[in-house]
């Protein structure tokens, strides 16, 4: 059953997948490690965007704190995996380190993200519309301030370095292409399960949050509970992505998980089209390759960052103006 969903996904996304794989293999001929890096980042963002798709796409809940879940996942992974004595003085400065194995690390990252999302959802789901958006935006800022200033937990602006890479049954994942393999395995485990979830009665119940909440309540569905579950699952997936990211880059600091990142994720999903299987993939491919294209156009780095942000902002405005269905309706990219 689950594999059917996956096969359907492969089929409905064949064009995007083939063109993405084709483009990246061309790149791989030129610079294999660069192509591998792009693939790893795309894999991580696929996890993020398919998670966000559940809350934003299916639930119609515009969550502006997805990067906070991502960040908590990354920090959980880092703290759980770090070993005392190995990484120099920084471990002594941290509140707690675990020295657990990789599987426990990503599992804890998943749980950390899910718990935080459930907590935030419990508060924010009392509101709808612009109050909900603003509340999630505020939580994003809170988490960022905590990560940035609670130096004992996260070393604040200095960041945590030397995070252990994944070790799976004696397979130490070091090189970029090995990491691509690991991500492919994770995606093949997680995504089919998630696609199945989209179509399950639970997924349909999440949709009622977007379509007509009052009608769903009249039918005896507890919409708040459904919304809470959806947020927890999406948060867990984001936490998992964060854990994989931390293991890949081995250095994290709070600036990777700021409001900018959340805005980026929402733009990504709205651009691709939310509420279906294809949108997140298209959005991820476009939004991750766009900055690379800007880089090839030879823009200086200082200017490029601002120009990129400007493009994201403009994209949000134009999308809201021309395709507000990105918020509500199920839209396909045509």
């Amino acid at each position, binding site marked *: 059953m689950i594999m059917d969903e996956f096969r359907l996904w492969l089929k409905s996304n064949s064009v995007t997948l083939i063109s993405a794989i084709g483009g990246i293999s061309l790149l791989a001929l030129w610079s294999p490690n660069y192509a591998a890096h792009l693939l790893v980042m795309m894999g991580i963002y696929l996890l993020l965007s398919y998670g966000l798709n559940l809350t934003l796409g299916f639930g119609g809940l*515009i969550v*502006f704190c997805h990067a906070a879940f991502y960040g908590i996942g990354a920090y959980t992974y880092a703290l759980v995996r770090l070993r005392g004595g190995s990484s120099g003085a920084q471990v002594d400065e941290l509140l707690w380190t675990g020295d657990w194995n990789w599987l426990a690390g990503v599992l804890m990252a998943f749980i950390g993200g899910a718990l935080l999302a459930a907590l935030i959802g419990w*508060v924010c789901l*009392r*509101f709808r*519309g*612009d*109050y909900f*958006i*603003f*509340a999630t935006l*505020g*939580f994003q*800022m*809170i988490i960022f*301030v*905590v990560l*940035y*200033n609670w130096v004992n937990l996260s070393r604040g602006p200095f960041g945590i370095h030397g995070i252990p890479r994944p070790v799976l049954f004696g397979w130490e994942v070091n090189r970029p292409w090995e990491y691509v393999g690991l991500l492919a395995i994770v995606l093949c485990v997680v995504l089919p399960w998630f696609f199945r979830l989209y179509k399950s009665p639970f997924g349909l119940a999440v949709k009622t949050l977007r379509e007509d909440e009052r009608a769903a309540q009249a039918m005896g569905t507890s919409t708040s509970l459904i919304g809470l579950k959806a947020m927890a699952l999406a948060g867990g997936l984001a936490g998992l992505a964060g854990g994989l990211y931390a293991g890949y880059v081995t250095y994290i600091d709070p600036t990777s998980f700021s*409001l900018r990142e959340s*805005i980026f994720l*929402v*733009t990504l999903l*709205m651009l691709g089209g939310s509420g279906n299987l294809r949108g997140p993939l298209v959005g991820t491919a476009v939004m991750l390759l766009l900055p690379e294209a800007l880089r090839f156009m030879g823009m200086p780095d200082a*200017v490029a960052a*601002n*120009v990129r*942000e*400007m493009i*994201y*902002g*403009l*994209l*949000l*405005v134009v999308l*809201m*103006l021309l395709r*507000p269905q990105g*918020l*509500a309706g199920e839209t396909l990219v045509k």
Partner: protein
Amino acid sequence: MNLFLQLLANGIVNGAMYALLAVSFGLVYRGTRVFHVAFGGLFVLAAMLFHTLVTVAGLNWWLAGVGAVVLAGLAGWIVEDGFYRLFFVRHSSAGAVMVASLGLAVVIENVLALIYGNEIRTIPRGLASSIVLGSVRLTVIQVAQFVVSVALLVVLWVLATRHSTFKVFRAMGENQDLLRTHGLPLMSYRARLFALSGAVAAVPACLMMVDVGMDVHAGLSIMLIAVVAVLAGGVDRMGAWVAGGFLLAILQSLVVWKFSAKWMDLVAFVLLLIVLLFRPEGLLGIRKRWEES
């Protein structure tokens, strides 16, 4: 104790400016139900225009302030006419307008960053002389901040209670379409409201610029302050927005005293959260029936 009084005084001075920010945001939110996130962008724009008028054009502070206020008002007008209007005529949902407004804020921020750079900008000036009242020491600039802000708040208060335009603004917040049936030009009133909001926000922008300077990324936390003051105070009363502004500033000041300045942003949002959880209509808000809201 001395430190407490000093910080309380600082809090009250900041509170006057926060109150202006809150009025600026609250007028728009109450009048049009637009969650004006781009407000933060307009605020920084006003501060940077002021900076240019002082350092490049060489105007004196007061003249430059007036110029910045006028230009910011114009910017508010343009934002309504060229941006929010498009969403209004399409009957976009409140969430869509808010997300688009956030996008506009990001665009403004980055355009300003390209022009002015990412570093903090300050007005070149000598050391400000200070005034000592008992155990409290305030700089002349702080006193000016307080006097100007309170004067403007009084003017706005008198206008809001006496002038018919503000009555129209309130009515617009209840039902925009009904305005047209009374023969009132809805779009013109909306544009006036946004222009007024931009102009009011420019005053604290100039005052903060003179005092400590500003970088182009300040917009979002300024927006947060204004929103929290309005929502925590209560959306339906102007007095509540002002009270919210003062409360927030004093709380922030006390947190600096008891803990550290780095938790200041946290205070704003925690205050809002507590208010929303236990008194959703705001501290001084008016409790409404479900069908009224």
